[in-house]
């Protein structure tokens, strides 16, 4: 068993193992690792559930394949078995809703004093979002 780091919205860790380059974790650890929970009806987060059939696509023995879970919920991944890290990208549907349906994706980030702020904190105002950098 080893520690697998998951870079998603937050940095999370889960106890698991790598098998043939696949990141495997205990089903109980899934929710804390990726925000989705495996239930009889599928992979669920909030009031949203994604069907996974009999679960054979995401199960390896008594463990879950994190990359297959991400694939099932349409979140991209990059995995690095050597560093024991899984990068879990944002749901593709979020960006597609922005580009196609003009729904501004919400986000929560720290300000310069470390306080977390969200786009939705300022709902009800017209907002000019400015992405900039020092580079």
């Amino acid at each position: 068993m080893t520690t697998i780091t998951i870079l998603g919205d937050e940095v999370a860790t889960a106890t698991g193992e790598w098998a043939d380059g696949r990141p495997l974790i205990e089903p109980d650890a899934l929710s804390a690792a990726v925000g989705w929970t495996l239930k009889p009806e599928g992979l669920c987060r909030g009031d949203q559930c994604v069907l996974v059939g009999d679960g054979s696509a995401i199960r390896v023995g008594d463990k879950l394949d994190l990359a297959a879970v991400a694939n099932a919920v349409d979140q991209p991944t990059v995995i690095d078995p050597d560093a024991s890290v899984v990068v879990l990208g944002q749901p593709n549907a979020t960006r597609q809703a922005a580009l196609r349906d003009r729904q501004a994706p919400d986000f929560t980030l720290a300000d310069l004093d470390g306080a977390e702020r969200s786009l939705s904190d300022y709902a009800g105002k017209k907002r000019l979002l400015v992405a900039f950098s020092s580079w």
Partner: protein
Amino acid sequence: MADDGFMVIAVAIDEAVDEVRVLADGITYPVLMDPNHILTETYAISNVPAVVWIDEQGRIARPNANEFGSDMFSEFTGRTCQGHFDQIRAWVHDDVVPDDADSEIADLDEDEIAARLHFRLAAHLRRAGNEEGAVRHFDAAAELAPLDFTVVRAAMPLRGESPFGEEFFKLLEEYQAAGSPFHGITPA
């Protein structure tokens, strides 16, 4: 215009908090740090500055556009910021949006998405002291999205290169030779 139900939210696609603090000196609106480049993924941002107009209901009133907040780079871009300021004023006061507001922005392709995740992994490994792993993933990111400034140029200071040096001008030349591919509106 702050009293008119309008505000600016600035997000630094950056992890250099001290340098961002210098840029943000005197600014009273929120300045947020996005060291993991989440917004480059969810908003399909490929270069900065990029501005997005978001209305009261959280809908995008005008998608990603390459607009500047000052005329510092006017000589370079051939544009001034006054036009954009006038457009924002018309939007805030009269709900008028410019003709380019319904422009379609191309989605990221799989390589561009993977490049963002490799960048995030590289930045994480670098912060964790794994320089070799960081270089490997910065390289993978640059190979997948060689003309994306949030991938290639953003990595320069993290790889010990100057984002205003030789590598930048090489990137700029390749970018322009490719027709300046940008996920967003590039105003005339």
